[in-house]
């Protein structure tokens, strides 16, 4: 571990209040838009330091689960407890303050800002000074900006994006943007990190890098992760447990090896065998 990484790891782990039990409990959640059932009785929990993966075909409701977690959607039924606290119906910014961070399927960076500013926005909740101090930009405002810049620099180092520090994110290649977005989420010092397709559209090298970062985040920064991903090889290699959903319903839940051989999962992904009535007898 480099010195920077050690300092980041010490920083992110220090000052955490210990919490007994699962980081996240997602119990019996129902979400529907009008007549459309998006989530139908989904339950799972995430343990501390766990890399939990959610997979399923397109439209299965994976991203909707993330939106329920971060407070964008409000499920009609069920409980969502984060670090023992009920977060159902809370505003997204309140949930963020509790320690949940996420990345998005389609990169949602602030494209007119530099990489540095994007990462500093991740530190928003850790910068406490108010408007009057900001107007003068002396004393507390400057001190806090500099202290948080150190943390941001540790993250830049951790994700190996030093050359792009002052670039506007809108001009960066897609793979780097994904990394910056991960960095922005890490800058929030989360207890739970939601990653929505972090390697979608990436080549092999970029995928390998991202996998390495995820393992480092879990093992060295000790942050629990929920991963939504279509890259099956990566999910099966990395995840501690996997939840499979199809049409908003949970199909299987367990370690990767178990899930892989589950007949329901195979059916969800590959479809069922049908015999065609009267097949072969062409007129």
């Amino acid at each position, binding site marked *: 571990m480099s010195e920077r990484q050690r300092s980041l790891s010490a920083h992110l782990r220090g000052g955490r209040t210990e919490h007994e039990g699962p980081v996240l409990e997602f119990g019996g959640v129902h979400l529907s838009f009008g007549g459309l059932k998006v989530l139908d009785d989904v339950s799972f929990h995430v343990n501390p330091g766990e890399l939990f993966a959610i997979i399923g075909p397109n439209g299965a409701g994976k991203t909707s689960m993330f939106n329920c977690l971060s407070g964008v959607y409000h499920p009609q039924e069920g409980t969502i407890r984060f670090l023992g606290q009920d977060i159902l119906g809370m505003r997204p910014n309140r949930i*963020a303050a509790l320690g949940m961070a996420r990345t998005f399927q389609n990169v949602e960076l*602030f494209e007119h800002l530099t990489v540095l500013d994007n990462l500093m926005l991740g530190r928003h909740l850790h910068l406490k000074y108010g408007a009057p101090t900001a107007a003068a930009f002396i004393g507390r405002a400057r001190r806090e900006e500099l202290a948080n810049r150190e943390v941001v620099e540790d993250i830049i180092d951790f994700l190996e994006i030093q050359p792009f520090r002052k670039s506007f994110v809108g001009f960066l290649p897609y793979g780097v943007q994904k990394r910056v977005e991960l960095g922005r989420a890490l800058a929030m010092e989360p207890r739970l990190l939601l990653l929505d397709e972090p390697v979608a559209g990436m080549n092999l090298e970029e995928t390998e890098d991202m996998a390495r970062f995820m393992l480092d985040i879990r093992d060295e920064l000790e942050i629990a992760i929920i991963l939504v991903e279509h890259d099956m090889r990566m999910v099966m290699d990395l995840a501690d447990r996997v939840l499979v959903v199809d049409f908003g319903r949970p199909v299987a839940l367990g370690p990767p090896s178990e899930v892989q051989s589950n007949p329901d999962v195979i059916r969800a992904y590959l479809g069922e065998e049908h015999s065609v009535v009267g097949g072969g007898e062409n007129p």
Partner: protein
Amino acid sequence: MRGRPGLITSYRKDISLFRTGTQRLWLVVLLLVALWLPLWMPNDWLVPAGISLFAAIGAIGLNLVTGYAGQVSLGHAFFLGIGAYTASALSTVEGPGTRGLLAYGYDMIIWLPAAGLVAALLGVIVAPVALRLKGLYLAFVTLGLVFLGQHLFQSWRELTGGAGIGRRAAELSLLGFRFDEDGEVFGVFLSDTQKIYFLGFVLLVVMALVAKNLARSRIGRAFAAIRDRDIAAEIMGIDLTRYKVIAFAISSFYAGVAGALLFTVTGFLEPNAFNLELSIFYVAMVLIGGVATISGSIMGAVFVTMLPNLIDFVSDYLPYDPATGPLNTGQLEAILFGLLIVVFLIFEPLGLYGLWIRIRNYWKAWPFSY
């Protein structure tokens, strides 16, 4: 390594406003030139120059809410009007000339901040609209504000004197020192216009610095986050309600202060002045100057305010004379104005600020192309 130009060795240095000696030197040169200009400028240039300094304060305000926070506002004229009338009513001394108008006779030290604060308060009241509406819809609602304001200003005779009559603008008397009378300052004889120019200069420097500091702080970053991706911003822990209210409050404060002072140069306030056209002028300053830049707001305000003078000046060297031709200066200005907005939006969306960056980068690498 030491002494290499542009080498930055600490984060403290990296986040400072002017990072290199060259930048600081040119800033000093610019400030000195701005202080030297009024000493010899003829009055027909000095009056719009003074107005442009106050307009720059208003343009910075609009840029904070529209450029930085992305909340398109066409209601800037309303806040300018609120500032102007608050200042005028608070400063006017009761006398035979007041004709039953509101007159409290306070000093500038009271009425100037009060004009800003009253406008800011109204900004806070309007802000919740921005919580529900975005973009074009918000622009339309703030447009309504202008008409509402115009009606209010025309019919509230005790405050404004009524349409077509009007009242005097605020009196520039700061703790007994009169800006609106000729007199000696530190042994130098200054005319009233020169004094007002210097007042505008000092206020603009202070308020631009404050705005720049806000823009580079967590507050300015939160504004930009809301502008670029509001949902992502909220998930990063930014309280949308809070920051939209802050944006409108600060912006309206700047507008209030600008409005209070704008009309002191000509000395007269007329309710019909605070119309949609005035709002459009400010939007133009922001667009032509440079969206989401403080220096751009100043450049835009100076350019737009001085445009009639520039047209007159340029026409001396052109075969076309606005004094005798089919189009007079005002008409030319209106045409140029629209043309400039279109041209800047298409070719240089960062406005005058963008042009400046291009020129700077060219000379940075000169004589090489890259």
